[in-house]
């Protein structure tokens, strides 16, 4: 396992499957009355958020706390950063306080890479979203959600997503979620199709390991999972598309379109959803929509990543073979073994 998690493209198939399998173990913790493991007791994790993102920060925080880490939350607003402090000085200040891992969200693409490779700090770096570059834990939680729904919770263990057809719809150009998902899903053997108006597909996409289509209706019947991305209304003012209504008509997912998907196919969304824009309430609230599951799975995935990056090689959760749902697992941390 690597020391940092910067890009989904850095993960091998075996790395990714290990994270997904570990996340399944972590998910069992969430089913218990006491949702806590002592694995990261005495370790300090800082959530370094230069961009507002309540959802991702809370998810990481929940994961860290369930692993018993000491958590420091640092948001740029009102901090020394807003007074002009550099990323380097902020990072070194935190490291001087004895931080073991830095979870970073930054508006500049590549900031986590620079933090991990510049020699500024020794701590493990986890990318919680950088600019329009990568958001690897989002891709992992999406893959986890797909594996559970399309392969099975138990039968999925050790498995990848070979042959699954995934369609990603929306603002590909500005989306770190799309980039991460294309990389990871390709590694896991899935076939990815991107659907967007041509204005929202990056120049250079032809080198990505996926297909590109401008026609949602033709792709839907051949999809096992359809991931809708948020489209910011501001994009309209930059002439990426004429009006919200036209965007919705051509690229939004409503009940009628959802009916064209195969029976088993799921609808995904990384949130926050803009209801009425890329997705209608009917679809968002349907059983096929996994948006709430994705949030829950996000905590499990982030626990798995933190554990694998910081916890060493010992099992986080030991248990007798999971033949039933009995919460009879013995939990041992590194120190206890």
């Amino acid at each position: 396992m690597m020391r940092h998690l910067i890009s989904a493209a850095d993960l091998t198939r075996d790395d990714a499957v290990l994270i997904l399998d570990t996340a399944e173990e972590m998910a069992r913790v969430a089913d218990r009355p006491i949702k806590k493991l002592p694995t990261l007791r005495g370790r300090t994790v800082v959530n370094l958020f230069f961009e507002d993102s309540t959802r991702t920060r809370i998810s990481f925080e929940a994961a860290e706390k369930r692993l018993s880490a000491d958590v420091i939350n640092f948001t740029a607003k009102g901090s020394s950063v807003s007074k002009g402090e550099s990323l380097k000085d902020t990072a070194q200040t935190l490291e001087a306080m004895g931080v073991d891992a830095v979870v970073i969200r930054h508006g500049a693409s590549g900031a986590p890479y620079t933090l991990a490779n510049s020699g500024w700090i020794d701590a493990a770096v986890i990318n919680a979203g950088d600019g329009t570059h990568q958001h690897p834990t989002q891709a992992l939680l999406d893959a986890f959600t797909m594996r559970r729904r399309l392969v099975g919770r138990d039968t999925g263990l050790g498995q990848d997503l070979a042959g699954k057809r995934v369609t990603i719809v929306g603002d590909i150009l500005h989306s770190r979620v799309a980039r991460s998902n294309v990389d990871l899903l390709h590694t896991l053997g899935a076939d990815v199709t991107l659907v967007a108006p041509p204005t929202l597909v990056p120049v250079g996409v032809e080198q990505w390991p996926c297909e590109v289509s401008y026609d949602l209706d033709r792709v839907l019947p051949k999809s096992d999972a359809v991931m809708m991305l948020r489209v910011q209304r501001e994009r309209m003012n930059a002439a990426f598309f004429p009006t919200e209504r036209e965007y919705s008509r051509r690229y939004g997912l409503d009940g009628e379109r959802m009916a064209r998907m195969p029976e088993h196919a799921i609808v995904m969304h990384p949130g926050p959803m803009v209801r009425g824009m890329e997705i209608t309430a009917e679809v968002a609230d349907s059983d096929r929509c996994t948006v709430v599951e994705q949030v829950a799975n996000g905590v499990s995935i982030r626990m798995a990543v933190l554990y694998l990056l910081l916890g060493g090689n010992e099992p986080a959760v030991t248990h007798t073979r999971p033949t039933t749902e009995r919460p009879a697992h013995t939990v041992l941390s590194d120190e206890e073994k």
Partner: protein
Amino acid sequence: MSKILIRGAQVLGGEPQDVLIDGETIAEVGTGLSAEGATVVEADGKVLLPGLVDLHTHLREPGREDSETVLTGTRAAASGGYTSVFAMANTFPVADTAGVVEQVYRLGKESGYCDVQPIGAVTVGLEGKKLAELGAMHESAAGVTVFSDDGKCVDDAVIMRRALEYVKAFGGVVAQHAQEPRLTEGAQMNEGIVSAELGLGGWPAVAEESIIARDVLLAEHVGSRVHICHLSTAGSVEIVRWAKSRGIDVTAEVTPHHLLLTDELVRSYNPVYKVNPPLRTERDVMALREALADGTIDIVATDHAPHPHEDKDCEWGAAAMGMVGLETALSVVQHTMVDTGLLTWAGVADRMAHTPARIGQADGHGRPVSAGEPANLTLVDPAYRGPVDPAGFASRSRNTPYEGRELPGRVTHTWLRGRATLVDGKLQ
């Protein structure tokens, strides 16, 4: 001033000859010249060129003396074999008045390391709205003949047309930084395969090419000459080639870094590779080399752009654009053009001295190496090989993309009107 005998130098890469400097002038060129009364410089295996001329340098003074001053910048120039540099106008305050250009000109005179010819801004404050007093800058002590808003594009077609027309009155030239501003909002690197992966805002080739196409047509229409700064794409080469074939009076420059580096380097997110125009693709690099060889691109200009360490020791998005170049330019040109067989040393003299001096009207520079000419000379050891060590730079800044890279060639001596500014690689 005493006599200097440069013995056995390959003048412009030709057969070994002796060159005798007497005072400020080349007294004699021949074989077996007498060394009597002269300091002898043994130049076995070395190439003697006219002192190099850089049409595109950022000296940063006034305003950003933390990154470079006229003194440190001209010392860097002498180290790199230059005897004349043209100082870009994007200082603080902007060089858009006779007062500022005269200040820079005076600082250059005082430095004594190389001649400094200030470039005047085309528009007030580089804002692209209102013509600066071009005539006053021309008539000032600085005698400005090159005008540029470099760093920004003169994007308003009417302002560009007027500037092209206006400077004809005194034989000036407008040097355009070709960058369509709307197409490059938020641009961080070349738009293409790499930018798509890295999620960095794209700077498309068409943003450069469309301005060049417009400007060569404007130049043709009003019968003016136009110079294109730091041309960086294969498409731009095609447009300039077409314009020249039509007889349009256009000249163009390429930077050393665009002859060698590509956008693949940006994958490191190391801001030392952040520059404007951005590093392009391998295909562009090859087209630029070919165009420099066949004369479509007229000259090499460094776009030496010093920045303090903190402006590069940060995440990509926050970093400043630009690279220092004066002290590595000749090595990069040897590596990419001479050692590849694309250009002879005589060709290098043309692209880095004769033609830039002609475009910028740098009197006394870029002259032939022959008796009676001003002794502006540079001596190069082309056999040298070694890694670039920024710690040894004379520039105040260290933002070179070549740190640790092995490059051929080393400037050992530079003479400015007979005075040695660099001897055995040491500034005097």
